């Protein structure tokens, strides 16, 4: 319940809905057009029209014909007093019924006062007149008593200049005008309510959505936290697995080297297999550990001044034995001058080795693997996901490392996915080439942590190019 003691229900809740507010007359009409409407009415019927709102404020005032006659009344003291009193009465009398009320002036003229209602609430009044009733042929004799020095003849002369109106006619005219105004007011109210409701509905819908967003984002935070805990857990477990596994590998190695006495050939084969499988298990666990560190956000870059060419050369050395085994042609290009960059050397090294390792793995006997390190200034291919920055030129300079192979290639629809954890181009490739499917995901994370990008382009049966771009802004300027 809302209770109010003031004269308006809605002053108490200014922010409340339009539904709980009582409008004022001025809110419901366009004042200029409303005035035009009543002016044409006043001119058509030759009677004055005034409109007052609920508080007695005058909104419309048109006079007609009676000005001079009324002026005469106003020129004498007693009649002036009476006139003022009647005008006040017409302006503020209680209007209980919806039908217009008649008011008689001492001058013989008359008024009609019609209330304006909306939903039974009083909004204001229309005062019609004063007009000269048809039956009024001369100024009333009592005027003489009120203003002895008023000239009877002059009063009569002024009166007959006013066009007389039959009571029946004025009733019809007033009724018509009341109806027109009522329609105008209702239309105005409807427009006001519709537009207000529009705003209120949109505001309400907006806060509903905001509320929903808040719940969603809370749920999201929770999920993220759980994900982080999971990654933490995996990191711990992987770490715990690594320790015994290194022992398994270490002891196998010692066995193989005959430290515990000579082995027969078959025994050697078995132990070698144990060692080999142990190694790949260790690699898998290391990858999982890396990835979970990335996911749990516990990995950090250790940036140091690095000559990228040296890092790339070290990576080449890493893959040299396998490349030799497959009789591959290893080609490399490096930029001039030993520009230093602030990078995480170990992570960059592992990233490049990974790309080279893949290239070697997927290139058939006798093929070529080409490593190219260059300074690049311009817009990267769209596969990189790095747009061209038209406003900050420095953002378009990169340190670009690409690895080209002459392998089997990757279908277009898989090019993006190869960077997702555990993805394999097809399940047969795992069997044929081995690998965990984690390497490229790790590379991507390492590179992105540097603010860079990694992407692949490929042509089936011809080969692929994997590229790493690191912002040139990492360069150390002397």
């Amino acid at each position, binding site marked *: 319940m809302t209770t109010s*003691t003031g004269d308006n*229900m809605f002053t108490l809740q200014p922010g409340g809905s339009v539904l*709980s507010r009582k409008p004022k007359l001025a809110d419901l009409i366009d004042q200029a057009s409303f005035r035009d409407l009543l002016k044409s009415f006043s001119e058509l019927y030759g009677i004055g029209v005034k409109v007052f709102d609920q508080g007695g404020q005058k909104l419309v005032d048109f006079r007609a014909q009676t000005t001079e006659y009324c002026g005469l009344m106003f020129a004498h003291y007693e009649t002036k007093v009476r006139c003022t009193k009647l005008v006040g009465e017409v302006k503020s009398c209680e209007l209980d019924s919806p039908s217009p009320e008649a008011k008689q002036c001492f001058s013989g003229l008359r008024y009609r006062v019609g209330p304006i209602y909306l939903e039974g609430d009083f909004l204001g009044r229309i005062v019609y007149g004063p007009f000269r009733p048809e039956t009024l042929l001369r100024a009333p004799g009592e005027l003489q008593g009120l203003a002895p020095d008023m000239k009877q003849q002059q009063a009569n002369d002024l009166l007959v200049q006013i066009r007389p109106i039959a009571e029946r006619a004025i009733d019809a005219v007033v009724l018509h005008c009341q109806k027109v105004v009522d329609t105008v007011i209702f239309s105005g109210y409807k427009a006001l309510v519709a537009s207000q*409701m529009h705003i209120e*509905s949109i505001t309400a819908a907006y806060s509903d959505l905001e509320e929903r967003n808040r719940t969603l984002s809370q749920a999201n935070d929770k999920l993220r936290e759980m994900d982080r805990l999971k990654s933490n857990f995996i990191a711990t477990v992987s770490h715990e697995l690594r320790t015994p596994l290194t022992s398994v590998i270490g002891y196998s190695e010692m066995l193989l080297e005959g430290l515990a006495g000579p082995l027969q050939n078959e025994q050697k084969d078995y132990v070698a297999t144990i060692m080999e499988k142990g190694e790949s298990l260790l690699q898998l666990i290391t990858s999982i550990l890396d990835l979970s560190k990335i996911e749990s956000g516990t990995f950090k870059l250790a940036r140091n001044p690095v000559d990228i060419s040296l890092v790339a050369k070290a990576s080449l050395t890493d893959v040299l034995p396998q490349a030799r085994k497959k009789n591959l042609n290893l080609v490399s290009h490096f930029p001039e001058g030993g520009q230093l960059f602030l990078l995480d050397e170990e992570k960059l090294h592992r990233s490049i080795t990974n790309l080279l390792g893949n290239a070697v793995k997927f290139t058939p006997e006798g093929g070529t693997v080409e490593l190219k390190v260059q300074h690049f200034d311009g817009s990267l291919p769209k596969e990189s996901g790095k747009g061209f920055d038209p406003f900050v030129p420095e953002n378009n300079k990169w340190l670009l490392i690409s690895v080209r192979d002459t392998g089997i290639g990757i279908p277009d629809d898989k090019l993006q996915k190869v960077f997702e954890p555990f993805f394999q181009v097809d399940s047969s490739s795992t069997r044929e080439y081995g690998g965990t499917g984690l390497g490229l995901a790790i590379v991507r994370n390492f590179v992105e942590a540097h603010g860079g990008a990694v992407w692949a382009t490929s042509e089936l049966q011809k080969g692929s190019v994997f590229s790493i771009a690191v912002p040139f802004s990492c360069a150390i300027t002397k």
Partner: protein
Amino acid sequence: MQLNVSQREIALKVVFYGPPLSGKTTNLQALHHLLNGQSCGRLMTLDTADDRTLFFDVLPVFFKTSNGFKIKIKLYTVPGQIMHASTRRLVLEGADGIAFIADSQREEAKANNEFWLSLKENLRANKLDENIPIVIQFNKRDMPNVRSDEEIEEVRKKGKELVYGAVAIRGEGVLETVEGLLSQVWEYLDKKHHIEQMVKITREDFLRRVFEGASKPREGLLANP
């Protein structure tokens, strides 16, 4: 309820709530035709070109008591379309009583149920008293494949709400629904705010004033003349 002591005015708010196309607007239109033009104002409809309620419809009913207290009842409908959920909540704000207009057709059972639940939810959201008077109307009794009279009798017996059957297009059951609701609303507000003492009329007088001069339901009630 809005009460203005110095102006001796009291305004009650009644809301017609219910699933899409159950006949909420039709109820209000029928009421507008049936009630006496003296106490019943213009029906305002804010709808779309295809006659679906956009914001609400509202019908004001008002009269003055013999000792000069003005009593106004504003009857609103909510829009039934799913997308207008926030508007429904807005219109419900500050309601003193609710007529739940259900669609009797069997295939509408689920929609009725969903809107019944959403009503309860909105009442909570608007912090309205859970004991606010609610009556249920099963509309469209004239349609084929509707829930049987026996089934509705079941609902009437088991639930705590008053239950009415109606054919709103003919005006049947409309006055009964509103009368049942207003009677409860009066009782409820009297218990809460002692309005009888304030306004100095009895519930019977209140209802008589609202419904005096009302006409009878008839075929083609809402057809254009």
